[in-house]
């Protein structure tokens, strides 16, 4: 297992922000999603977030919903997600699972932590678990030395930001906007102040997600954050080429290269 901190350390050593890419497992197929994530690693992602498709994704906009639903319709199972983790972690980049809570509770929290660690996973991002309602996950993650990435939002109070920063390991996921996942035309002016508030609470790296879809936006965010998280734009690249895997992977490679150039261009 490669812990997420190595991605941030490497980026920091190069004087830039880390690029973190998201795709759901199982879209377009389980093997297809592995190939797509391998392309993202080759083209410059420093860490990968693997989405566990879920029937009721309240934090996701239409793009990720569509791919996750297609993955579920294609029969993806929780065990398949672990297979994707194993394949992606084998590339050497830190590999996290991003998942809503119920599939984990159903799988068994302790069993999940054991299997995720065995597959080489670095940890988990939990969009619908906050540290104050996540005791079971925190205990399992600590026992298996897994990263626990919690979210903060522009609406978070200072007390909650402090609590979240203290409970997070790997990084803190700063939601740049008040809204669900999806590409936005302009970067959010709420993200910068939010990152500053998290930084004031501890040493854990802060990565900004939601709304970033191109190299210029990545450069803007990379100027003030430790990491840039991109999800919907990657998913869109695949959704736009439903019947042509090679074209989808090419689009993914080009987008990754653009974003990777963006995080290196930023004035820091």
């Amino acid at each position, binding site marked *: 297992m490669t812990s997420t901190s190595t991605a941030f350390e490497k980026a920091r050593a190069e004087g830039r922000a880390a690029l973190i890419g998201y795709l759901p497992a199982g879209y377009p197929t389980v093997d297809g999603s592995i190939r797509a994530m391998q392309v993202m690693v080759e083209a410059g992602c420093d860490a990968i977030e693997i989405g566990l498709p879920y029937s*009721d994704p309240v934090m996701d906009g239409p793009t990720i919903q569509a791919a996750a639903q297609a993955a579920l319709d294609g029969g993806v199972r929780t065990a398949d997600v672990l297979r994707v983790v194993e394949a992606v972690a084998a590339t050497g980049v830190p590999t996290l699972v991003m998942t809503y809570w*119920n599939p984990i509770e159903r799988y068994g929290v302790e069993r999940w932590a054991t299997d995720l660690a065995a597959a080489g996973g670095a940890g988990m991002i939990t969009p619908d678990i906050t540290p104050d309602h996540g005791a079971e996950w925190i205990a399992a993650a600590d026992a298996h030395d897994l990263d626990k990435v919690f979210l903060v939002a522009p609406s978070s109070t200072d007390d909650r930001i402090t609590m*979240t920063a203290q409970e997070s390991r790997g990084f803190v996921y700063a939601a740049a906007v008040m809204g669900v996942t999806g590409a936005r035309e302009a970067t959010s002016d709420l993200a910068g102040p939010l990152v500053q508030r998290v930084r004031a609470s501890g040493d854990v790296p802060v990565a900004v997600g939601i709304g970033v879809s191109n190299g210029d936006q990545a450069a803007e965010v990379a100027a003030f954050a430790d990491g840039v998280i991109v999800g919907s734009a990657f998913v869109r690249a695949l959704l736009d080429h439903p019947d042509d895997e090679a074209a989808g992977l090419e689009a993914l490679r080009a987008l990754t290269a653009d974003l990777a150039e963006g995080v290196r261009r930023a004035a820091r």
Partner: protein
Amino acid sequence: MSQQVQHKSRYDADDRGYFGGTWGGRFMPEALVAALDELTDAWHEAMADTAFVDEFERVLRDYAGTPSRLYHAERLSKKVGARVLLKREDLNHTGAHKIRNVMGQALLTKRMGKTRVIAETGAGQHGVASATAAAYFDLDCTVYMGAVDTRRQALNVARMQLLGAKVIPVESGSATLKDAINEALRDWVASVDHTAYLFGTAAGPHPFPSMVRDFCRGIGDEARAQCLEQYGVLPDAVAACVGGGSNAIGIFTAFLEDEGVEIHGFEPGGDGVETGRHAATIHAGEAGVLHGARTYVLQDEDGQTVESHSISAGLDYPGVGPQHSLLAATGRATYTPVTDAEAMDAMALLSRTEGIIPAIESAHAIHGAIELAKRLGQEKGPDATIIVNLSGRGDKDMGTAIEWFGLGHAEEGPEADLDQTETVTQQ
């Protein structure tokens, strides 16, 4: 966080929203936590403010028509051998118990200074109630409704629109109530600074299960007092239908500490639990987390929510309010499935014996109450008393009734179907 003012019983949630230490809670995105905390504080402060409580009671009385009557269904009672009392929530303004919840939440919205409300709706009853409250309190209103349900309940879509609400059909997932909740939550994440989410049932993240219960508990408080006043006794049993469970928790709450009173929830059994096409969440589901609360959920081996089925759109939900999960787990209440066919028989029976056309939701409770009455009548005699929450009227369900019974053609008539119904329920 402010102190909970009302006396807490062992069936109430703790300060973090957990019932019995396990059920409920708040499994929600951090982006909504500040709003949920703000709502929790505002609700606690409002319930401790006599001016708010008085205004809530005044609005319900003068505008919504409460207290609703407790009516002795004499012909039905004679048929079943025990005293059946109907809590006539169907006579409230907008035709269901849901007006109580929305007037409470909308009054709170005004108090919090927000200008817009959003709501999800299944059958459309909560959407209509929300649109009504929004008109009354001069709030902008957007209602999310599963696309499948907008077709099943077109009349209610029109009612909401006439009342000035915007109705947005939800095509994602199974395009029913659970997906409407998902979409309303997505709206709320982006609009939370000026928008209140009028949650339609006693489910979801803390404080909704407790807050909605508080706004609906007048049903049971009234029924308990009315029963004592009119008959000098407490009932032997209380019955209600359970989808998300707001009408049920609304009538159950007053009786939870009355140990001699049986409490029965009737869940939508659809085509029969054994067919897999049902929404009997407590009876056939397993503990999990859905829409922010740990509760019984219809789910597959991987924790994916399973699509529910009920002839009644208002009960067609794969989760249930977490307090019901506690009441089931502790044995304080019993939850039993009632099939579509049994509910439709009960709808016809009540229409014929009492001249009351119940909502199909409520017809599930009527069927359950009839079965209870037969047993309790034998055990305790004809004075055995059952209060059933007649939570809504059936006008909205006439399309379903026309199809089910083959009604609407004057030359054919409904005689055959309904007579058959009576023999079935009379046995």
